[in-house]
């Protein structure tokens, strides 16, 4: 039945969450992890052309349009936040 299928998906998502929780634990305990991409090697990633939040006001509108027309919601990583418009 569909409940068992949904349950297994949730379990996978939960496992991922727990994994990253543990990951954050190791980070917070000040373990000396060597960054494999040095700060001076990050100029490509820091280029504005790579920024997903380059146009925040436009991202908020995009999220608003999709949230009003589709049932899916959440985890956008940008604006959004619900509205009563139909």
């Amino acid at each position, binding site marked *: 039945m569909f409940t068992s299928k949904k349950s297994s998906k949730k379990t996978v998502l939960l496992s991922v969450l727990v994994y990253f929780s543990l990951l954050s634990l190791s980070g917070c305990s000040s373990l000396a992890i060597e960054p494999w991409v040095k700060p001076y090697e*990050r100029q490509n*990633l820091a280029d504005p052309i790579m920024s997903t939040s380059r146009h925040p006001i*436009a991202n908020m509108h995009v999220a608003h349009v999709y949230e009003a*027309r589709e049932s899916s*919601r959440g985890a956008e990583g940008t604006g959004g*936040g619900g509205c009563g418009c139909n």
Partner: protein
Amino acid sequence: MLKEQAVVVVAVINMRISSILSSFAFSFVFIMCLLTLNVVSGSAEAAVLQEDRIDVLYHSYDGGGMNIDGPSILLRKKIGETLAVSAYYYVDTISSASVDVMSTASPYEEDRNEAQLGLEYLHEKTIIDLSIRQSDEDDYLGKSINLNISQDTFGDLTNLSLGIAYGDNEIKRNGDEIFAEQSQQYRLKFGLSQILTRNLAMNLNFEAVADEGYLNNPYRTVRYVDNNQPAGVGYQSEVYPNTRNSFASKISASYYLPYRAAIFLHYRYFSDSWEIDASDVELSYRQPIAESFEIEFKVRYYQQTQASFYSDLFEYRDAQNYLARDKELSEFDDITLGVGLTYLVPSKYSFGDLRSEASLQWDYIKFDYNNFRDPTAGGGIGTEPLYGFSANVIRIFYSLYF
């Protein structure tokens, strides 16, 4: 399926999702404690707040008999090096003659105003962000509060973020002074950004949302077969469950191409206690043109299954405990094709020699419904053609950095 069985199944799903939400809440508190410890202990290098900017935008949505447009403004300003304030104001002017409005009601016009105020505090590598939001319509008032905390870690290769939000909504019905309903919304968010190589970064986002209260649209009706009516069809109000729990996960990647261009990919999976499963995938590409322009292309595909209590045409009145004929709860897919152009205004032409940009974005979205029929198109009841429409979405905006 018998109604009793359906109720039991919904209860089981709600219990499972409640358990997921509890686990998520536990993880949230756990990580929040760790981040707080890190704030107290301090770190060697500091992060920085985003630069001051003001954005002014005009937006327009035109499709499916709806025309929505209006202005929007966003202001961010640092106060010293550790504090920033932001203000956002947004207006929708809506003129609606959509298919469900035309089949059972009259076209209408209304305004929606939204305002947000935010405060960001930076300490070492941690940013705490608190914001309040209000959305106001004739028949709807939504208020919410958001708290987010994010932290750079692992030699700043990783950024962890956590968010919590609470919203309270008051729903009214125009022309009905007695009608007054409420709903509440709770949101928990978790995000992880990871630098993988000097050209590749990835993000993971998870969000659980729980709603309770009046979740219907107070105007919308469902239709059912009624041979006593001359048209052969009768209408009754929608009835939605009083709770809705959902969980969404998104994975994204950004890749820098060697000739100074960027490619972005994301995939999101969504499911909720109304048995809607949805996913969307988006690919976009951005590159400069000459010295002063940037061009961006986007393609996105979305599909969803229907809510368990949705039907385009019920067999008789009160056919189920819950009834819906909202096309956004039906099975459908949509595809977006988008293009954007940004002009990097030379400082000599900008205000006070400040850096600024002017942008135009156009999205074409095509929706195809698999079990929502168009009653205005003619044909027998329940055999009308399936509905579909396309929309053009335009954003014109100007960003000034100061």
